[in-house]
């Protein structure tokens, strides 16, 4: 019978770097990423899984890291906003966000970028409605989304 533990040691690869840490079973993945690993690009905007500011890509799948336990990421490969650009070189999507003023305070932006990145990987040339549908899980209170749609459109082929 598998052991029941209130804490365990996990190995998680984030943006290519492997981290081995002991975590409490109750710790949410987002707290592990932000507090334990000090990767503070991913944010927390709610406590009910609605806002998407904590969105990250786990083994190729877009998830909200506030609705996943850190222990559930054991052995997984995680991508966060810090892993998007290489050597300070912005991706086309990041550049499009700036060009189209798709961010104001920038708090929702990391999660928004991860959702848009996941969309463009699966569908490099999405239609307007597909873009809206793909960003439905990310709340932005500054922009009204319109410029974000424009940016994603611009970054698509």
């Amino acid at each position, binding site marked *: 019978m598998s052991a029941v533990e209130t804490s365990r040691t996990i190995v998680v690869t984030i943006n290519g770097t492997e981290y081995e840490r002991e975590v409490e079973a109750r710790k949410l993945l987002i707290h592990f990423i932000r507090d334990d690993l000090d990767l*503070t690009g991913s944010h927390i905007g709610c406590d*009910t899984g609605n806002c998407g500011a904590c969105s990250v890509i786990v083994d190729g799948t877009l998830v909200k890291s506030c609705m996943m336990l850190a222990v559930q990421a054991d052995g997984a490969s995680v991508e966060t906003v810090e892993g998007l650009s290489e050597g300070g070189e912005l991706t086309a999507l990041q550049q499009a966000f700036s060009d189209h*003023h798709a961010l104001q305070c*920038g708090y929702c932006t990391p999660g928004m970028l991860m959702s848009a990145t996941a969309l463009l990987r699966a569908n490099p040339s999405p239609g307007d409605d597909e873009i809206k549908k793909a960003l439905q899980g990310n*709340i932005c209170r500054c922009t009204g*989304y319109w*410029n974000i749609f424009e940016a994603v459109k611009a970054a698509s082929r």
Partner: protein
Amino acid sequence: MSDMSTTVAPAPVEVKKGWAGQSVPRKEDKRLVQGEGVFVDDVKRHGMGYVFFVRSPYAHAHITSIDVSQAEAIKGVYGTLTGEEVASLTDPFFQLSTPPGAHLKDFALAVGKVRYVGEAVVAVVAETRELARDASELVEIEYEPLDPVTDARRAQDDGVEILHEDSGSNLMWEGVYEWGDLDAAFAEADKIVKIDELHFHRFNSTPLETDGALVEYNRGVGQWTLYTNNQFPGFAAIMMGPAMRCGLDKLRFVTQDIGGGFGNKITSHPQLVVCCLLARKLNRPIQWTEWRTDFHLSMSHGNERWFHDTEVAVKSDGTLLGFRTKALDDAGAWLRYEPLGGVIWAQVTPGMYRWRNIRLEFTQVATNKAPVSPNRGYSRMQHLWFTERVIDIVAHELGLDPVEVRKRNYIRAEDMPYETPNGCVYDSGDYAQMLDVALGLIGHDGIEARRAEASARGKLLGVGIGSTLDSGTNNFGQSRMINPELQFSGNNEVATVKLDIFGEIVVTLGTTPQGQGHETTAAQVVADILSCSIDDVQVRAGHDSYWNSHAGFSGTYASQFAVTGLSAVKGATEMLAAEIKKLASAIFGGVPVEALELADGGVRIAENPDAFLPFMACGAIINANNAGLPEDLGVTLNCRYVYRPPFQVPDVEKKFGNLTLTYAAQVHVAVVEIDPETGAYEVVDYAAVDDCGKRIHPQIVEGQVMGATAQALGAATHEQFEYDAEGNLLTPNFYDYHVPHALDMPPLKTGSIESPSPFTPLGTKGMGEGGGAGIHAVCAAVQDALRGHGDAIVWDSCNPYHRVWEMLSNPGASRSLVSVVDA
């Protein structure tokens, strides 16, 4: 994505060579798109303790006992703080109100009594976030519940429980405003339109980042450093210093990036005091993260307001002569910024219209709900919603066209600058032209055909207009209309521009931006004056009250940066430019400064460009190589300028005077389609036209218009802080408090007009808060759609599907609120 956003070319303005007026890339973006911003919850310190607040489950109750012993006994718990301790270590927060509100004893934690669900009662600090919450569950608090007051209309009834014994009743503040000659206006009227009750609901902008802080105490010098996202440190300091019995310089505020504010992050001073006291008591850094549910339960709700017994004097042709109304403002449990809302609305007393005779009786009461505080459009939005509702109800009841009624009554371009009945001076604008542009954007000419086409699909189509003013740059003298004893007036903002030793241009601001792009727009203004590139200008990110010079009203709030902030930057940069020339004149052996010009990142002799002194040389000479310079040179290349808008102290007796410097305008038009079977509806077309004078960065301006519009659409349809009879908040999270998501966004068309302000150094007007127009527009559109289907009157600012269905199935309920009598 044309169906998602369209922009019409702005009305022709002279195209200025230079940086200002161009949508240059934002300096802030590079760090933010890479997750390299520094927000308050990103700040960590060795040995910091996490604070968790134990909050009241009751709306109204006496606290009979508090026992923290079990919580403190847990390993890893650093300590606790209770209301009793706060009451002994601090004085109550300074109250802005006259009595009875003046008598409130407001402390950082509840003392003896709780007055709303979610009020902080005890603070627990522990080694981890989780542990602090675990321990908070072991704090034993005994309550003796009292009947809650949840309806402002009942707050002053006999036998109702009183929230604040010290003030003797639930009345907090009241005042009567009257201008013109009401009797004459009503005598001249053909018709009097009466509206018994209108209700502006409770909501706020719910910035995605909630409040927070990391507070360190330096015992040796008795000074606190607060890394926090408070958006108006100047205000927080004058609230906290006296309460904590310390000088303001002992409170150092530091912020870098702030995840949205919208006014909602002005009144976090109680929580900050708790963190300060704990940092001193426990001798370690204290970290506070406010969770979403905490924010909804306790932070900065927008003012809920009722309008009763409204009477409008109008001619048969729709000419508006004046109105009377009674405004009842629900302040919630405490006056944290109130009762300023009791006068702020007066900045836009007649809205956009020419009526000259106005009487408004303002009453503010306390209820067992979260305290209200500024929210985007603060207090003006409520009043402008009222004036717009009045226009549409008058048009509706007199069978007139809302477009015609507006055009007939709008203040005209040729009347600008226009003095309102209460002495405000609208600086510039052409409201009728804005309306034409907006109507053009949604193809208003073809609206009847669309209405028919929609009804063929079984849908009710309606079109509505919302016109608002975004009054910016407060004259704080208006606070004296609330309390003549207050020693506030005018306004000010500061900037410092210096040339460092290697010629780097460094700008520091007094402001605390939350996404408005101050680093970028400030650099544009500086680059134009110094004739250099914006890349050569480094604007410090965020604010540090120890390093950035700041003034009493410094901060980012109330639509003023484009006026106060940028005027300060302009002033400081012009000082620096003059000093550079003065220095060059000395270096070039007395060439008159008039013969010098700034160009290509340096200063040169206009006639002889080879005589060139790069900024780097200037910085080096003054800072490191200054031997032999003339004694009386008086050049530091470090220039501080305080911009002070031209204001007079208003006449407190007559409640007369100019209350803000600029009056940006917005006209929005919404087209909705209602499903009559369910009451569900959607916005199918939308236009927003903005006029905020000279635009330094059109893209940023448009971004503010879009964001404010989205917030308005959310507020108009789903967003509401609604309480049940026991005082439980029914929408304490984003699950039940539905903000707009991507799929909720209608197509948006934006347009703009530039009417430069004659009163500001750059011709700019403060902007960003005009989104309320969207609430008015949707309310009007819903009412229009219901025309001929029961003719219900839209009486509430929030119209979720169930309310629309109720208006359809029982229009009589709202019809009974209005009547028209022949004068």
